[in-house]
């Protein structure tokens, strides 16, 4: 395990940025988001949760992957490979876990090579959550924000003026080595303090208001849950915006579109939202005509369909929807409704 004094972090950023695109939580006005670090950027390691999840780094909101040109009857296609190597620093355990959930989909056969490429070129540095918030419920999905999350190449913990640093993967080790002297070895005393820190975090989790949310309380088979009466009422307040899906670290529905430019065109994929009325619109109809069906789809996907296909819930309890949904139609409420009385707090 290594460490670095927090006031030397900018040296660290600089060093990493020499060879990688470095993404950090950066403040812009009132919001903190992962953005490319440049000298002078306002890095914010304290804000627990960025507005956008780091999903948009590994799975960009808009990604051009093909360029085309038509000349008479001829068609030319050219694949766009557009990623360099990058490092994301400060990813919380929930968000790290979300990457695995995206991997399940995109790295399943047939493998999405663009995503695979993006994952290969990325190095994830996690940051433990010292002070989980009232909207957090990662624990409910088996995530332990005090530990080094599975999927992180390097994990870090803040302790006082120090940042602890532990490589978790081969990639992580290589970077750690390359950083050389910037990082120092941790001494035993500090190791002990770190253990205490972890226990402290764990204790705090238990007191969070949403700690008892438990998706396992959802009973019944797919069709029973699908036909449940709760959807009749639950959807009513939904505004039909796509905020939940866009800030969600695990939502991954996308659309494929062509742009017709003047000097050839390009094909891109971009995030889409099952909350939008035209998501499943076809020339001859729409299987989900009301917001009820769309709201149901989203939560069924997260809590049932995905689970059936990948043996895991498509939620990491990050709390973004809990905090951001303008009408509080968040997954906690759905789990509670579906789980019935067993889920009362």
């Amino acid at each position, binding site marked *: 395990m290594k460490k670095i004094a927090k006031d030397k972090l900018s040296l660290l950023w600089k060093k990493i940025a020499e060879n990688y695109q470095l993404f950090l939580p950066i403040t812009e006005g009132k919001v903190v988001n992962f953005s490319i670090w440049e000298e002078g950027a306002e890095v914010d390691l304290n804000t627990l949760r960025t507005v956008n999840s780091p999903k948009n780094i590994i799975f960009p909101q808009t990604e051009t992957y093909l360029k085309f040109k038509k000349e008479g009857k001829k068609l030319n296609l050219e694949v766009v490979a557009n990623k360099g190597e990058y490092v994301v620093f400060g990813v919380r355990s929930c968000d790290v876990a979300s990457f695995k959930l995206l991997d399940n989909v995109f790295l399943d056969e047939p493998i999405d090579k663009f995503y695979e490429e993006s994952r290969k070129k990325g190095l994830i540095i996690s940051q433990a959550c010292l002070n989980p918030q009232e909207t957090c419920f990662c624990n409910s999905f088996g995530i332990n924000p005090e530990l080094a999350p599975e999927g992180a190449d390097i994990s870090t913990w803040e302790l006082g003026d120090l940042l602890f640093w532990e490589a978790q993967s081969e990639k992580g080790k290589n970077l750690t080595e390359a950083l050389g002297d910037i990082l120092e070895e941790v001494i035993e005393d500090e190791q002990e303090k770190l253990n205490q820190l972890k226990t402290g975090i764990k204790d705090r989790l238990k007191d969070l208001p949403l700690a008892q949310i438990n998706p396992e309380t959802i009973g019944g088979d797919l069709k029973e849950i699908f036909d449940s009466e709760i959807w009749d009422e639950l959807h009513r307040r939904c505004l039909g915006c796509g905020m939940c899906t866009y800030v969600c670290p695990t939502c991954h529905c996308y659309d494929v579109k062509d742009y017709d*430019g*003047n000097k050839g065109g*390009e094909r891109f994929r971009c995030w889409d939202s099952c909350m939008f009325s035209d998501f499943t619109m076809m020339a001859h109809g729409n299987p989900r005509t009301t917001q009820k069906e769309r709201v149901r789809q989203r939560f069924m996907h997260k809590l049932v369909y995905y689970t059936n296909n990948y043996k895991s819930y498509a939620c990491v309890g990050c709390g973004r929807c809990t905090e951001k949904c303008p009408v509080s139609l968040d997954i906690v409420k759905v789990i509670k409704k579906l789980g019935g009385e067993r889920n009362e707090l």
Partner: protein
Amino acid sequence: MSVVASSTSVKNVEEFEPLIVAFCCNWCSYAGADLAGTSRLNYPANIKIIRVPCSCRVNSNFVLRAFQRGADGVIVAGCHPGDCHYMTGNYYTRRRFSLLKNLLEYVGIEEARFKVDWISASEGNKFAYVMNDVLEKVHKLGPNRKLRDSRWKR
């Protein structure tokens, strides 16, 4: 140094051939443009006219789309207020584009890039004058980078 800098900038300006899209109402401004033609007046070829029945047919979407597609300036021209072939159309045009013009300026689009004017069928001279005037001003401003789609090449 300064001499070199200015000479290159002049060169750049010379290379810049602005594209200006003009929406002209059929009854006045388009006819005014015809008259400018019949009178063999001169204005630069950078201005390209789209015929619409009335200036009130011009949607803000069209204006923004032209900018997105790399137009360096956009003109909406209609009959003088009071002279609308459709009686009242250009009164709406006046309100609609007064607001849009201000809004564009407000978000940092240079004032001269969007021009609304009243040009009657008999004002071939004014047509040519307005076109030359807009072009000259846009030319000074240089290419529209602010609203152009990055995928639309110059």
